[in-house]
């Protein structure tokens, strides 16, 4: 299938890094994973374009979740930073990142979160930022707590921060979760373990980084993200 007028192609071969839809150990997939075959479609203008957000989408304190209220939230202050690139290492520039997370006690502000841990009046846990010209981003937050969920008896989610990214097209859209190094809950987590490849799982674990750490103030973690996308191919190349 030829796609004309496009300068980007996305390899289907990259997709096995993602989990399958059906991962029975993660109970909610059982009634929500499609059971009929997906229909593979060529990459048309509809897939190769995507929404563009300007820097005016983001306000100053959107990237600092410790400064969105009158007081400071409780918990271990952290800086999370990294670089968004495509599969060839090219930066994903000026691109929106949205994050959300539980507070230090493992409680989300969401009305449906029934975990009996305290809310923090000084913490919402929602942030946004734009990547810079090198694809870099930086958030300030507090370290989220682990929390129980009802997937199976004594189930606990490892501490994590949710990330939502766009990249240049509808096909580069990614929602994922960042984990923290050394968390003993990770090997027990059906959501993380839904990713078949060990290396792909490891890429979701941030790295403690002493260089990012600000003395007397906050611990630093690095989390790089790779979105779909390869170097430009000739216009008439097979895009499937």
């Amino acid at each position, binding site marked *: 299938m030829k796609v004309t007028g496009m300068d980007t192609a996305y390899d289907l071969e990259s997709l096995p890094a993602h989990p399958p839809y059906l*991962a029975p150990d993660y109970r909610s997939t059982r009634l929500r994973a499609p059971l009929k075959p997906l229909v593979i479609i060529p990459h048309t203008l*509809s897939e190769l*374009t995507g*929404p563009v957000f300007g820097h005016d989408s983001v306000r100053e304190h959107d990237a600092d979740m410790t400064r969105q209220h009158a007081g400071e939230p409780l918990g271990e202050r952290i800086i999370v930073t990294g670089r968004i690139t495509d599969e060839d290492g090219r930066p994903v520039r000026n691109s929106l990142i949205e994050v959300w997370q539980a507070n230090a006690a493992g409680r989300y502000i*969401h009305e449906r979160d029934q975990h009996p841990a305290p809310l923090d009046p000084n913490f919402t846990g929602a942030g946004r930022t734009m990547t810079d010209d090198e694809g870099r981003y930086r958030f300030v937050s507090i370290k989220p707590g682990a929390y129980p969920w009802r997937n199976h008896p004594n189930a606990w989610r490892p501490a994590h921060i949710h990330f*939502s990214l766009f990249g240049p097209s509808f096909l580069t859209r990614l929602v994922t979760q960042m984990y923290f190094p050394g968390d003993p809950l990770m090997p027990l987590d059906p959501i993380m373990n839904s990713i078949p490849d060990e290396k792909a799982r490891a890429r979701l674990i941030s790295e403690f980084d002493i260089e990012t750490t600000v003395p007397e103030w906050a611990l630093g973690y690095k989390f790089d993200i790779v979105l779909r996308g390869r170097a430009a191919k000739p216009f008439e190349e097979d895009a499937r």
Partner: protein
Amino acid sequence: MSRGITASQTVGPFFAYALTPEPDGFTPLVGNLLRTPDAEGSAIRIEGRVFDGVGDPVPDAMIEIWQADGAGVYARDFPSGSNHKFRGFGRCETKLGVFAFETVMPGSTGGPDGSIQAPHVNVGLFARGLLKPLFTRVYFEDEPLNVKDAILNLVPEERRNTLIAKQVSPGAYAFDIYMQGPNETVFFEA
């Protein structure tokens, strides 16, 4: 050199206060009103529900849509686009069991091998229990271009109706999504 892409993980049940925050106080970045006063194209509403494998409505999903304007221009084409404000992107959660978008009827767009794609809206579905989004498309009933649409023609004929929104009143279209079951919606891989 392949670096390996970052794997997807579920959006989980608690995204709304960050991604679709209208009821929750955090200023929304994008919502379900796409139509702008200067948008090219006739006003339409697309509404629907999302059902799981036992037919229960899903109350914690997020739908994202991405579409061209009425002239078949995606906002990416700016500034050659036919208008300056229609961004073509929307989000809606299914907290009340339903989703709805106020937008414009998209125009036809270029397709594979110089073909023409029938008017359609691209859909991404995110939810607890979805480890990666589901992608589908909304096409519109009574659209003559549907029969020649290259994507629709890749879909087994008996399942094509799952992609066609029904007009329920002038300018209002219904599009339900079935994650499983006999009417399971056609989902795409691309």
